[in-house]
């Protein structure tokens, strides 16, 4: 499938490499050219410097034929806006959004976004590990 990733931080770059290694076509968008260097010189996908909340930029990167869009910049609101553009204007079949704020995560899930909150997931993992250890000690 063809996946457009907005945000080339640690998560974006890693996701891009995973997808490319699995044989998918990937395009990565970031406002900073420095961030795109994370992908290394061997990266076979497309890269573009620009804003994912800009309709023209999205069009140029081929959002219209994308099977999926992932918004993983540091900014919750930027991710939310770009995802809504991808979903409602370009009708991308699968749109995933990273939202740190758990309350905003719930709100936009209710509005139909597939939202992932690293805050909620991270806390859950830590909690499970901590409480499991405790129960192991009790055993």
């Amino acid at each position: 499938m063809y996946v457009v990733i907005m945000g080339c931080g640690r998560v974006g770059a890693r996701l891009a490499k995973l997808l490319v290694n699995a044989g998918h076509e990937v395009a990565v968008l970031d406002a900073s050219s420095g961030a795109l260097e994370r992908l290394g010189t061997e990266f076979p996908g497309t890269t573009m410097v620009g804003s994912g909340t800009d309709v023209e930029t999205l069009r140029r990167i081929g959002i219209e034929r994308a099977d999926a869009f992932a918004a993983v910049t540091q900014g919750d609101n930027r991710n939310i806006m770009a995802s809504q553009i991808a979903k409602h204007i370009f009708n991308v079949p699968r749109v995933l959004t990273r939202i740190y704020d758990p309350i905003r995560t719930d709100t936009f899930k209710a509005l139909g976004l597939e939202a992932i909150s690293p805050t909620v997931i991270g806390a859950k993992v830590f909690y499970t590990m901590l409480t499991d250890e405790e129960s192991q000690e009790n055993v």
Partner: protein
Amino acid sequence: MYIIVAGGGKVGFYLARELVAQGNEVLVIEKDRGRVAEMTSDLGSVVLRGNADEASVLAEAGTNRADVVVAVTGDDEDNLVICQVAKRRFNVPRTIARINNPANEQIFRLLGIDATVSSTEVILSVIEQEIPSDSMVPLVRLRDSDVEIVEATLPLGSPLAGTALRDLDLPPESIVAIVIRDGEPIFPGGGTALQAGDALIALTRSTHEEELRQTFFARR
């Protein structure tokens, strides 16, 4: 009315001051400590320090009983999310967003924001009104439709001068509602003959806007 203003920059500050003077209950939400202190000394205790895009801050501000939320920060994506959270989570009846990039106007409308204000668009339309040109100035778009009210001034030597309105070859779904001649509005009939210098206020669907422009500025 209880009005929440998100963003305490210049726009937010002067807006809040006017709204307070009109007797409204107003709360400004601003994240910068310095700005909060400045505004509090000017406006009194109507400023809450915090990020208006954090739902917990909106809850603290009593957003669930707000009549209007106006988002006027310098970032379009923040303004969009503030309005959406206010509307969906706190059931605020009316949300208004400032738009910095005019291209975002359509996106905001599509995503359910009640009204948008784009200072760039406003300045552009003023420039277009000041400079005689072949451009049609969009005045208002009717809410929840693609019907626009536009204004076009017939230039000197316009081939349409002397043409009766009924003979004008208008695109479908377009009407000339008012003709402004020498500052006086005329409600035209089919027999009204156009003159150079007339300002035509017309209604049209966005899809026919370009055809309408070509009709008004046809060259011979």
